[in-house]
């Protein structure tokens, strides 16, 4: 499940964000405890805790004392906004660069998209 490309706690945080975006984790819903998470993914609980702490810092999760961690009510909309802002820079930009490298014109891309959505 985890790769070498980034620290595991970052991958944990990203995985939870994706689950919130897809709706697999509901707003105000409880997420697994760090121990459950550690046991499930076979990782040190401190690593899991670090991923969760980052999400609390970012306002994606919040803590209920003595109960556990929950998804912030507006987390989904906030994450969507962030991802939408980065979409052109992170996804479309590299695609256009690759297109330029191999001589695919913007026109061709446009045609392809028109075809794909028709």
């Amino acid at each position, binding site marked *: 499940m*985890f790769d*070498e*490309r*980034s*620290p*595991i*706690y970052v991958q944990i945080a990203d995985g939870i964000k994706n689950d919130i975006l897809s709706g697999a984790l509901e707003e105000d819903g409880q997420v697994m405890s760090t*121990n459950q998470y*550690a*046991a499930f*993914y*076979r*990782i*040190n*609980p*401190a*690593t899991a805790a*670090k991923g969760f702490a980052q999400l609390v810092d970012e306002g994606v999760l919040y803590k209920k004392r003595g109960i556990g961690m929950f998804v912030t009510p507006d987390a989904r909309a906030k994450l969507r906004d962030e991802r939408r802002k980065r979409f052109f820079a992170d996804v479309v930009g590299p695609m256009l660069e690759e297109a330029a490298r191999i001589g695919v014109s913007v026109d061709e891309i446009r045609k392809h998209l028109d075809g794909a959505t028709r």
Partner: protein
Amino acid sequence: MIPMISVRDLTVRYGATTAVDGLTMELAPGRIYGLLGRNGSGKTSLLSVLAAYRRADGGSVEIDGVDPFENARIMRDTVFVRDTLDVPEGDRVGKVLDFHARLRPRWDAGLAERLTEAFGLDRRKRVSALSRGQRSGLGVVLGLASRASLTLLDEVYLGMDAAARSTFYRELLDDYLAHPRTIILSTHLIQEVADLFEEVVIIDRGRLVVQEETDTFRARGVAVTGPAEAVETFVSGRTVLGRQSLGGVRQATLYGGLGDEEERRAEQAGLSLAPVGIQDLFVHLTSGEHTPEAVR
């Protein structure tokens, strides 16, 4: 109470050989540490002093603020498992387990029974009749079921097949989650167990090379690949752990993570960056080309 471990300027000698050479480190309580080092790097000697199996030749070790040597209170709560197993060879498995159950105040008989079965150990068999993998299995049973506040496991997986090792890692983590304690696990098989370590401690030639959060350590290795000249320009002034070339293409392994700005600069120079696996990073750091001081 889970003890704090403090090692100061520790030296261990065997005749003319210095196994541990002025090693200083502090280990916070309640964590799983991975102790990594090549054969002969001093891992077993270090653990032997922590377990009070032998005395330091120089420097000091404090567990919970006191010297563990011949300290009954500390020793009752310390377990050390190494490849020699240190149990009577003529005893049957059942007798060994019963003896430890009486010796260890927090012995978990249920866990011992489950693990004994998981590792395919026959209680009626004599220790001398066990296979290498079964001996290791018995070591793991003693190490985990003792549930000691300080648990020292020295390459306890020898001879275990992949399935048995996987059982060992799973049981170790589950029992740690339920009963947090300080566990130091020495190993060569870093890749398959690294995710369990909160911190890695790497020693080489009796000296400390790295003590760091596993995730932080993992991020320190970067492989830079591209035209030889561009690679050399980019890596100049950095800690290069290794180089290899294929035709005009060179790959240099760097120690120390790159910032966003540096990553952009590498990309502009036509270089590709890739992470270095934790096992490779360890091999590079202890391959003898670099003095431990070089990466500090």
